[in-house]
């Protein structure tokens, strides 16, 4: 932690610097145009000041984004449509629901695949095909179909989220459940263990490290799914909806703050799973 502090800070400062420079460059034409309309000329100082404080900049400056995030996080009621916490919560609930469905589906499929060779051969190609279809094409259809059945809001989002997240879980769990060595399987055979006993006593414990790696990928995919699910639905809440609304009205500061909220959410969720992994691995005496 302390060892990585310096390099990470260095990179962060570098990115901030680059970002400030870019926002001067990208927002300057608008500043110059306005000055020309008012028959003014801009000093460099005035230019910088203008480009870092426009209301609808092409690229908002970092402090604009962070003050917007601060404002919409701490100075709004969390139940308000203008609160970032509210929108984050909406997206989070879709993410978690989709992640839970995806994890269950992924584990069930992996068990079926490992248990039975025929299932492996018949299901696996479909699973791989499913991930070849771009989610952006599929998402509106899922929303329309579920909407026509009367399902709106959380469920369609969760379904899209599940669609993205079950895949890393299946792949990781199949690998994990097949990770016991031949010696370990032979040993089980010498005890005449049933398939179910081999699964329960050997395959499942051995798959735990693989499961956690998959869960980290899965939760990130779930979040993407939930946001994508908020884009085409005409939804008015959620980080995805906020990004879309921001882009309709050219409110770039809003888009960026939603983007950062999503990134922070993703990092938090992945870290959380990492923590649970550490605790369980320590208890199970497995190397992380």
């Amino acid at each position, binding site marked *: 932690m302390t060892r990585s502090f310096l390099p990470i800070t260095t990179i962060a400062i570098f990115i901030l610097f680059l970002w400030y420079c870019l926002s001067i460059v990208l927002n300057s034409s608008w500043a110059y145009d306005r000055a020309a309309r008012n028959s003014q000329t801009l000093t460099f100082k005035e230019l910088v000041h203008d480009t870092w404080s426009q209301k609808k900049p092409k690229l908002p400056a970092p402090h604009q984004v962070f003050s917007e995030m601060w404002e919409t996080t701490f100075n709004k009621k969390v139940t308000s449509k203008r609160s970032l916490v509210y929108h984050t919560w909406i997206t989070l609930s879709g993410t978690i629901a989709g992640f839970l469905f995806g994890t269950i589906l992924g584990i069930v499929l992996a068990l079926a695949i490992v248990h039975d060779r025929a299932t492996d051969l018949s299901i696996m190609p479909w699973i791989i095909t499913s991930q070849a279809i771009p989610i952006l094409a599929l998402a509106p259809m899922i929303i329309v179909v579920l909407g026509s059945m009367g399902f709106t809001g959380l469920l369609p989002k969760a379904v899209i989220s599940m669609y993205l997240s079950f895949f890393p879980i299946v792949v990781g769990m199949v690998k994990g459940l097949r990770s016991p060595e031949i*010696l*370990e399987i*032979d*040993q*089980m*055979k*010498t*005890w*005449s*263990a049933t398939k179910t*006993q081999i699964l329960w*006593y*050997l395959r499942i*414990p051995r798959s735990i490290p693989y499961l956690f790696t998959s869960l980290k990928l899965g939760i990130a995919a779930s979040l993407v799914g939930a946001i994508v699910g908020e884009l085409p639905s005409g939804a008015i809440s959620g980080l995805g909806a906020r990004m879309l609304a921001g882009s309709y009205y050219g409110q770039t500061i809003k888009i960026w703050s939603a983007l950062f909220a999503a990134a922070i959410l993703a990092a938090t969720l992945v870290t959380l799973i990492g923590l649970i992994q550490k605790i369980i691995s320590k208890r*199970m*005496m*497995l190397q992380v």
Partner: protein
Amino acid sequence: MPSENMISAKSISLRFDTEDSVVNALQNVSINISRGEFVSFIGPSGCGKTTFLRIIADLERPTEGEIEVNGMTPEEARRARAYGYVFQAPGLYPWRTIAANVRLPLEIMKYSKAEINERIQRVLSLVELNGFEKKFPWQLSGGMQQRVSIARALSFDADILLMDEPFGALDEIVRDHLNLQLLKLWLKTNKTICFVTHSIPEAVYLSTKIVVMSPRPGRIIDVIDSALPKQRPLEIRDTKPFIEIAQRVREGLRKGQSYD
């Protein structure tokens, strides 16, 4: 009804057909092992010792020949839990304590809770590991881990114990100690033991019968019935009968090589 012949193999052959070659792992192997014997299989690596043990255990099927284990086919014997198998590596589960590792086959075989606990105590004391129940495998030395593995193989009271170079990875001092222990354990439990080893002194010290094998194709060169007494202090290794048997084993191994 228990048969006097615990294991009887008649003209066993096993060929491994792999993509690029055919290996005659065993050719025309016949042997009779009586109840209560301690049989060592010795020979250079690749002569089919492991393969023969695996055939007894129903982990491989012979291509030709017939084999009976306690009057049954190997598969029936495996299902009847007629043998305990000790592999070269201890194969303990790192997430289970020592007691829980010994408990594993008992849980699989659905013994009652009370009986499981009683048996764990009994077999751990057989290998002199009482008091280590709550430890995890990584807290034990290699020799102790292998003893846990033996305890586990003993826990369900199989009549036969199959051991594939169980002490191969251990140093000589630990090995001497474990040999002594194993002999005591055999006298106490009266099991039939099939023991694979690379070491001539180990084979002679432990066995009532020594099977000398040679590779390509794997076959039996000599079967030596040892006349050493059942009670064997370590010093017996310096006596004349011991040295004579060791010489005969060495000769057999040499003869096997000259066939190449």
